[in-house]
């Protein structure tokens, strides 16, 4: 008996050692952006909160309007869209920050500001790592995080995993799906840009290659407040610009490094935490959980060795008994 017991303990300690090494694997970013990855730069300082992006998003993604309970009680639901936050019917949402008398635009004190929430299209998406059946995938060229309902089992682990609570589940349906922004993939294959960018009247939602958008964002955060800047409209490639007065930017590009980086980037004049965006580490949670999982299950060596020990042990103890 001693032999296999020792083997068994050896395997266990091997497992423990692998787990101990995990911290060293944690460091470093493991996934990089594809050269052709596309994204959206949302500049909250020039957003006027008109929600044209929301209306366009609903129209081009066949999403029905939402109404609040008050509107339902008053019998005016369905006349206009009044979603409260991102939901299974709202993939793109403009939200308002308000403080004090809300008199000054882009001001943290006594001011107001807008933020647009949608899928961040992470460089190293936790939802893609979490999905047991590969229903969520990251397009190797565009980097868009796509959803396949025919693979999905509805376990909702993607929702647990996403640090931004982006994937939404249709709780009210007997045949539910996960809903999330796919950056108007269906429009992009036809040469169009995402609806939210196409219909934004100020250029606050700007489509382009992520590398170009990052460059644009870096340029903007260095601009002098009060000066005039020609803000590109709709898409960086289009060349159409609109001159506007520069707001006092916070020198930070949200999404440049959050959870290993995102393809949806945000700029603001007030702190991002005030806009409800989470503070995240520079590596994805997926990189941590995968490091542990692949550490323990590397080449299935540990489980197979353990099984070998267990088979031997179980055989020795049962061969002379009746069970």
């Amino acid at each position, binding site marked *: 008996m001693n032999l296999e017991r020792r083997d068994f303990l050896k395997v266990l300690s091997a497992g423990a050692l692998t787990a101990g090494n995990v911290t060293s694997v944690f460091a470093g970013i493991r996934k990089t952006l594809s050269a052709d990855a596309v994204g959206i730069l949302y500049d909250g300082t020039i957003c006027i909160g008109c929600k044209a992006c929301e209306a366009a998003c609903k129209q081009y993604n066949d999403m029905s309007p939402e109404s609040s309970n008050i509107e339902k009680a008053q019998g005016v639901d369905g006349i206009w869209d009044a979603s409260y936050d991102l939901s299974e019917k709202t993939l793109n949402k403009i939200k308002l920050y308000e403080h004090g008398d809300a008199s000054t635009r882009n001001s943290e004190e006594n001011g107001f500001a807008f933020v647009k929430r949608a899928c961040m299209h992470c460089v190293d998406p936790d939802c893609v790592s979490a999905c047991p059946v590969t229903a969520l995938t990251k397009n190797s060229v565009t980097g868009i995080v796509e959803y396949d309902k025919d693979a999905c*089992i*509805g376990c909702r682990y993607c929702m647990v995993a996403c640090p931004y609570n982006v994937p939404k589940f249709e709780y009210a349906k007997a045949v539910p799906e996960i809903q999330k922004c796919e950056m108007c993939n269906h429009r992009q294959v036809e040469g169009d840009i995402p609806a939210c960018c196409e219909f934004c009247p100020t250029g606050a939602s700007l489509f382009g290659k992520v590398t170009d958008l990052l460059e644009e964002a870096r340029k903007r955060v260095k601009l002098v407040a009060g000066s005039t800047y020609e803000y590109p409209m709709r898409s960086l490639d289009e060349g159409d610009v609109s001159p506007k007065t520069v707001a006092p930017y916070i020198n930070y590009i949200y999404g440049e490094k959050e959870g290993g980086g995102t393809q949806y980037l945000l700029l603001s004049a007030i702190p991002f935490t005030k806009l409800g965006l*989470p503070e995240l580490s520079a590596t994805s*949670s997926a990189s941590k959980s995968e490091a542990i999982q692949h550490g323990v299950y590397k080449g299935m060596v540990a489980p197979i060795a353990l099984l070998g020990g267990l088979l031997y*042990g179980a055989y020795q103890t049962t061969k002379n008994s009746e069970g």
Partner: protein
Amino acid sequence: MHEKQALGGKLLTKPFWFLLGLAMIAGLLLIKRFLFGIGAVTNLSDGYPWGIWIVYDVLIGTALGCGGYSIALLVYIFNKGEYHPLVRTALMTSAFGYTLAGVSIFIDIGRYWQMYNVFLPWHINLNSIMFEVAACIGAYVFVLWIEFSPTFLEHRKSLETKKKLNKILFVFIALGVLLPTMHQSSLGSLMIIAGEKLSPIWQTGWLPLLFLMSAITMGYAVVIFESLFSAVALKRPLDETPILGKLSVMMIPLLVLFLGLRFGDLIWRGQLGNIFNDGMLGAFFVVENILFLIPIIMLASAKNRTQPTTLFWSAGSMILAGALYRFDTFLVAFNPGAGYHYFPSASEIMITVGIISIEIMAYLIFVKKLPVLPAIKHS
């Protein structure tokens, strides 16, 4: 060979009818769930996509189903034959716990008709902890029923088949130890990807080891608890007390290791002070760890371990500790932000209660009709 016998007796007792009633209420609510969606019966939201069905029925349910695993580890791998009388009941409770966890998963997942995708090679995602958990639990339910099948074969007097099965049973015994080792640890790993949404008091790379150790300990606790409880409830003699006392010793080193790792990790990450910063979470942490501490204290002296009452309460405390640790990790300390809150709805609770009722009914049917419990020695 330890003699087993069916308990016999009347099946349709008053408590049985009561349980049947609870199960039928759950059945009606389930019709509602499948016709109108998960939102019609639960308080789940986009922030809290998992509720008590996953945390109680699956996480705690399978940990309570670890009796078969923990005892098999002792009897077959560490060759402690003296615990053999406990194997059959432990396996039975495990088979129930895991099978009903599987049923709960089926109820909880939104696109259940595609559940088999988890087993299709072109769909599976090897990076996904959920894949590991789903595949392992699925396989283990099958293994558990094979391990338990000699009981059916004895009942049907198919002794030839039983003899043949016994020759290969060691393969299933080995798998029956491997699979829970894999998925009980992975059930903890599930939350690593929740990252910042889980309080740093619970979020750690050691989740898999903490979950595995507490699951094995819960396995021993369940065997002790269930044996003493059923002896009293079914009016049987407390013959098993000496062996249960011996078994209870197993929990002490496991618990000391668990608490050592739990607190060592918190100190190492500089998070121990956080317990005092967050009132509600701190309180949950304290209660959770007191429950883990109680069995260590109660079982420390050999004299205490001969007392059925001490064994019963220490095992009960251990079960609550492991259950609360799982509740905390998956619900209490999980905060998706954005103003989301979760408390289970009445329908959600009634469905879980119905599933527990089915489990108890199945237990009663099995011990009364099949040779599961040790034969009573008449002196």
